[in-house]
């Protein structure tokens, strides 16, 4: 028997939380040198609760500890933050523009970040070098692009931001930013840096370390808080501006807050990871199907959970499936995402509920 409708999201939440723990342990034990899950659990427990006395006792070696605590754990945590953040923003965007195929990148964030990253990779500025510069320029590019999309939509809609004008200006800005990236690649002389841009665009969380974690973690936590408290308002937005307005929602102000938060969250992620597609698109849909409702009070927290699980597993697959060579994460998520997307369209044609 199916559980009653109100308690169903809660049950799914508890199940997903359990899956999340399992996925974290599994993903840490998985990789170029496999570690038994029991050891992973032991090392984590030891470090967290006994301040790492296990090495001295000889239960495991220092390299094992290094792999678990300093290499794989930050990466897995970053995967959680990244998958959760992208899925959150996907759910919010779909509600705001009332379009089931919207994703976190419709605000031009991905292409803006690409252009910024390409700039740093192809013609690096002299002052602060390396990975850090790529992150900063990607973030600036993402924020510029999303601001551009918003204000173009506003100008195009005669002072009002409508879902359709927003999608259109997003497409336009995406095209311009892609053109900038292409131009930079065209002008670049060294094949190595061109390869670096391509690699960046395919998306990966390999750059994750303890030091790259705090900013994205802060932004995603902030987003989770703001979106989590806006469930009812997001529901109202799903019925259109007119209805939301007549129910007393300050539509313009609310939309601006949601967009700014989304672009901050996604920019903080994309600037570190590159473009990881399809997560933000499909996870909210899976959640709506599982929970049997589009109610954002349930969809928002569940999307964060499932998105985290999905990305951690996809990253484990990217690291482990093809021997020692690591696959870009964007390829894995797209391979899983595209068939699912087709399935969604088929469901829509049958008069299903999520299209």
């Amino acid at each position, binding site marked *: 028997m199916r559980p009653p409708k109100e308690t169903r999201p809660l049950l799914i939440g508890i199940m997903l939380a359990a899956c999340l723990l399992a996925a974290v342990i599994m993903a840490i034990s998985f990789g170029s040198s496999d570690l038994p899950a029991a050891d992973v659990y032991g090392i984590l427990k030891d470090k967290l609760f006994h301040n790492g006395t296990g090495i001295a006792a000889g239960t495991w070696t220092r390299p094992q500890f290094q792999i678990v605590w300093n290499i794989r754990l930050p990466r897995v945590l970053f995967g959680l933050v990244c998958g959760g953040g992208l899925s959150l923003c996907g759910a919010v965007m779909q509600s705001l523009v009332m379009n089931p195929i919207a994703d976190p990148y419709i605000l031009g964030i991905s292409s803006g970040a690409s252009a910024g990253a390409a700039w740093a990779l192809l013609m690096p500025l002299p002052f602060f070098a390396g990975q850090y510069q790529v992150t900063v320029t990607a973030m600036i590019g993402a924020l510029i692009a999303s601001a551009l999309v918003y204000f173009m939509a506003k100008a195009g809609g005669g002072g009002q931001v409508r879902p359709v004008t927003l999608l259109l200006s997003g497409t336009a800005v995406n095209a311009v930013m892609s053109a900038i990236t292409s131009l930079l690649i065209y002008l670049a002389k060294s094949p190595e840096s061109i390869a670096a841009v391509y690699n960046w665009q395919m998306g990966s969380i390999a750059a994750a370390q303890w030091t790259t974690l705090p900013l994205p973690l802060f932004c995603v936590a902030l987003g989770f808080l703001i979106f989590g408290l806006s469930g009812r308002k997001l529901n109202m937005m799903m019925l259109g501006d007119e209805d939301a307005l007549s*129910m007393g929602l300050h539509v313009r102000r609310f939309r601006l807050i949601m967009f700014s938060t989304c672009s901050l969250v996604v920019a903080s992620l994309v600037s570190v990871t590159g473009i990881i597609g399809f997560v933000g698109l499909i996870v909210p849909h899976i959640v709506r199907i599982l929970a049997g409702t589009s109610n954002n009070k349930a969809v928002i927290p569940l999307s964060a959970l499932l998105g985290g699980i999905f990305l951690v597993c996809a990253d484990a697959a990217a690291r482990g499936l093809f021997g020692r060579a690591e696959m870009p994460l964007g390829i894995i998520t797209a391979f899983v995402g595209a068939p699912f997307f087709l399935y969604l369209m088929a469901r829509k044609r049958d008069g299903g509920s999520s299209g």
Partner: protein
Amino acid sequence: MNVEFKDIYVTLGYQEILHGISLTGRPGQMTGIVGANGCGKSTLIKSLFGIVPVKKGSILLDGTECRTMTKKELSAAVGYVSQEVPCIFDFSVREIVEMGLYARRHGRKDGKKLVQQAIEKLKIGHLSERSILTLSGGERKLAFLARTIAQGVDTIILDEPTNHLDIRHQLDIMNFLKKSGKTVIAVLHDLSLAAHYCDTIYLMRSGACLAHGTPEDTFTRHNIKTAFDVSGAASRNSEGVVEFKLNLD
């Protein structure tokens, strides 16, 4: 609540849609807005919620200019049932009705009670857990009307509430509104329904008011000819009921 539109001008793009139109709705009365397609009926009622910007004129709710009210204050006073709500995502009827509580102060328990009362008032208890996507147009309309009841307003404004509905649902909605005791302002296309149910009718033509008053006074042969280019009129029959008759030729 007394609703007064005073000399409203609305411009969209470079086109002036409304040229100084006035309208009054009174408590316990049903006011109909009637006119040919594109004459500005929907624009007029949308101007109250700020969905379309008013260029000149004022809209008063019991004497208070509605543009000085916050969105929440306004929505606590006036409810709106739009012509067509895009139902893209999956919500149950109960979830839709619950959204009406947004502007209302209430405890957790009271909220549930208010929603249940609204659902029962419109006799849609059997639909309450159904997804809005699986409902017919008429059932959806009832759900959205229930939402305005949960909103706790004493004025309801509706844009073509009987559109696409079968005759049973049309009468259900009109009877409900008539008996609600609220200030009701509705854009209507069916002249027979308008003549039968409305206390006052505003007949519009290209952004202005052609005539207003009781159905009998408004739906004269001359006015109907001017507004719609068809032949017909309202009259009181032998039982004293106002009826609209269309002459088909």
